């Protein structure tokens, strides 16, 4: 699947499809994570009463905390799954 001939690599750069697939997976994951955070924090922080086009200070601070908390929860869940993966 991937070529490891010394000469070949110096003449042309070969694309390892595994690396691309991995990068693609990472990209998908980050995009998905971002979209979920945007959706969740909008539900939790932004009121539906549209009195003005700007976010007020309370909403802004809520967003900051919401993003931080979401990523924290994300890490904790990741750790948990690591532990469970190890013991399984």
């Amino acid at each position, binding site marked *: 699947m991937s070529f490891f001939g010394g000469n070949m690599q110096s003449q042309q750069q*070969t694309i390892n499809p595994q690396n691309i697939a991995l990068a693609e*997976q990472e990209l998908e994951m980050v995009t998905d994570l971002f979209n979920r955070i945007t959706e969740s924090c909008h539900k939790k922080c932004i009121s539906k009463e*549209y009195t003005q086009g*700007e*976010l007020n200070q309370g909403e802004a601070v809520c967003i900051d905390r919401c993003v931080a908390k979401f990523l924290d929860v994300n890490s904790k869940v990741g750790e948990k799954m690591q532990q469970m993966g190890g013991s399984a």
Partner: protein
Amino acid sequence: MDPSKYNQAEQEQIRALIEQKQVSDFMNLFTGLTDRCFKECAYDFRTKAVTGREAACVQKCADRFLKHSERVSTRFAELSEAVSRTIFYVVRKIEFIY
């Protein structure tokens, strides 16, 4: 997604991938936002024209969501170290599968 892991040709391909993704992400943002603001603001179906009130609501709805999205992405970028830790957990699993 550490660039040093990939050679030049791979980086090119990944760059193209990212560009592609940005286009489709933008499309999704657009359709998602339309849907959201329609759900929030359109309520008067005695007329097919958008009423003044509905139009003002849509303006604010779109404005607020885009500002919200902007703020989230700023914070997200700042906390990207936490993000890469998550990726690390998942990637380890994927590498194991591969």
